[in-house]
């Protein structure tokens, strides 16, 4: 039996005329220890899908089963890494992670909790910044804290909602490696949601494209059989990598185009021309500006 199963799940928002069906007929099953990436355009309902799995929202039709039982709400068995970090800005890194530790091990002593917190912060290489507030950290560091917080619940499954989309390409690469390392250490089940096909290919065992919404549904599976550990610089050259990447991209572009042709909205652009600001003229001294008080 699959670890996580979605059966004919549909979800819509709004009511009456404004009702929009975001997800329709989603079928997905993830085995224990598997790393699955769902790739889709922005606005195709990816966050809704992950909210259904982490229990913040419930499906209108169909069911979401975790180990055969329907999900009734958020739980410590599913750690979530949010898209925009969602760290509490008034708490330090330690306190942010402590919130999760407190939830999972309420009866442990203070020292035990501290060692746990330090262990998870060490996992994401942030020990030097443990007593800093999120405002003092860079984007990549904040996202690592978010990962540490999710791990600190020692979840069986890790849900990641575009965790790296706000980061620059270089930081992305290192964080991708770190996440894959953490995953391969204790083989948690991972579900990664992303808009970057490369990211999916580098990290996941299986890529599933999400057809753009409304009424988004899942596309066919693409198995990733590249050997692990995958180093981006090396697998970049593999034909298999290029082939797979192009296949997924082509599929996404195709469904994106077909979706677009259905809604042939023409937008009239205003007839505007850019006006160049005054060019700098060399040789003419700029007059000193007079201070105006009124």
């Amino acid at each position, binding site marked *: 039996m699959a670890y996580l199963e979605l059966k004919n799940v549909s979800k819509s928002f709004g009511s009456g005329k404004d009702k929009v069906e975001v997800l329709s007929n989603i079928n997905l099953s993830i085995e224990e220890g598997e790393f699955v990436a769902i790739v889709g355009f922005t606005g195709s309902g990816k966050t809704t899908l992950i909210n259904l799995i982490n229990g913040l929202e419930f499906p209108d039709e169909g069911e979401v089963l975790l180990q055969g039982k329907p999900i009734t*709400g958020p739980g410590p068995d599913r750690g979530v890494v949010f898209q925009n970090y969602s760290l509490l800005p008034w708490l330090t890194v330690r306190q942010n992670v402590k919130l999760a530790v407190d*939830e999972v091990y309420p009866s442990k002593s203070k020292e035990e909790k501290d060692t746990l917190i330090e262990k998870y912060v060490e996992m994401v290489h942030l020990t030097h910044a443990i007593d800093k507030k999120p*405002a003092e950290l860079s984007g990549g560091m904040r996202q690592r804290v978010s990962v540490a917080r999710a791990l600190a619940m020692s979840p069986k499954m890790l849900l990641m909602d575009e965790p790296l989309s706000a980061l620059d390409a270089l930081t992305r690469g290192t964080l991708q490696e770190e996440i894959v390392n953490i995953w391969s250490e204790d083989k948690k089940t991972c579900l990664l949601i992303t808009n970057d096909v490369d990211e999916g290919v580098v990290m996941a065992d299986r890529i599933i494209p999400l057809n753009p919404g409304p009424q988004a549904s899942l596309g066919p599976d693409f198995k990733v059989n590249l050997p692990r550990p995958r180093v981006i610089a090396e697998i970049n050259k593999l034909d298999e990598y290029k082939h797979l990447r192009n296949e997924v991209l082509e599929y996404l572009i195709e469904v994106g185009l077909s979706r677009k042709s259905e809604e042939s909205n023409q937008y009239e652009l205003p007839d505007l021309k850019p006006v160049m600001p005054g060019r700098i003229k060399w040789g003419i001294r700029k007059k000193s500006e007079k201070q105006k008080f009124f």
Partner: protein
Amino acid sequence: MKDKILQLTGIQSFLSPWVNIFKGEETKKNINILLKSYIFPLLSILLFVLVWHTGATYLYNKEATSKIEKARAERGEAAALEVQNCIYSGEVGCQPNTLPSPAKVWEAYLSLLADHKIISGKKEAFAKKVEKTNAKRAEQGKAAITYTGRPSFVDQIGTSLKTVFAGFLLAAFIAIPIGIIIGLSSTLRTSMNWLIQILKPVSPVVWLLLVFMIVKTLMSDSDMDKSFMISFISVGLCSMWATLVNTSMGVSTVDKDFVNVAKVLKLSIGQNIFKVVLPSSLPMIFTGLRITLSVAWMVLIAIELLAQSPGLGSFVWEEFQNGANDSNAKIIVAMFVIGMIGFGLDRIMMVIQKMMSFNKEVA
């Protein structure tokens, strides 16, 4: 910490042009800043005093002429001349009673200070005189004899500040917890909304009467300071609405991301309130408290005036009833003091408010 306070109070930006000119950095730019932040405000003050002075002179002359005319109509030419001489000789008794000029207000201010010195001297003398008796009374378990003479202007300011802080604390203690409870539950919010909306615009005078009715009955036989109780409770009740509304608003509009985190981490209600809801609504709460304090100070004067409890309000009222020669000038002094203290209180709250708010974008 020191730097932060300097920066938040605005003292730093106030002093920096001077410092920069001394250092010789960007002299021209700093002189411009200086013009803007010192010279023009100073000019505006001068203009204000000038307008005030001309207006006061005009009113003085008008009042004087009407006084002379009145004497002429009632008692003949000789009486008119006598009144005229009396007025222009500067005798205190027959000065026209009208808006005092800036100079008179300054004089009144000095006389109030002198009065304060005299009264505090008297107080000290009294304290020395009753020292032994008080020690004896303390042994016998009786209350000490205290000075019951007329309070000076500075004492009145102290009393007013005491009352306003008592009222402010009362408002905070009532409004913040209720605001949090109401903010957490939308059902409670809609069911309490009518009450808040109806009570919010009620005038301070009505609150005073209401509090008077209740306190009078409750404390008919206790020897606590009844007028103080009445005035600070009314101040609290008048001013708490801003905090109440702001707190419930802040609590009910916690960022959705934070709410999601709390849900995913399955925080208990207590942890949710203290770790997520309260910190994120602190800026809103402090904005509310700032409004509350300024409303409290504004309302206090009116309430003291009506409740006859000691303080600046009753000072103003007594001077008005008094009708002495310099009463009007003293009222104007009180007006400026009230304004400046209000400004100071607002500044203090602003600094606290800024220290409490965090930058949301970097969360």
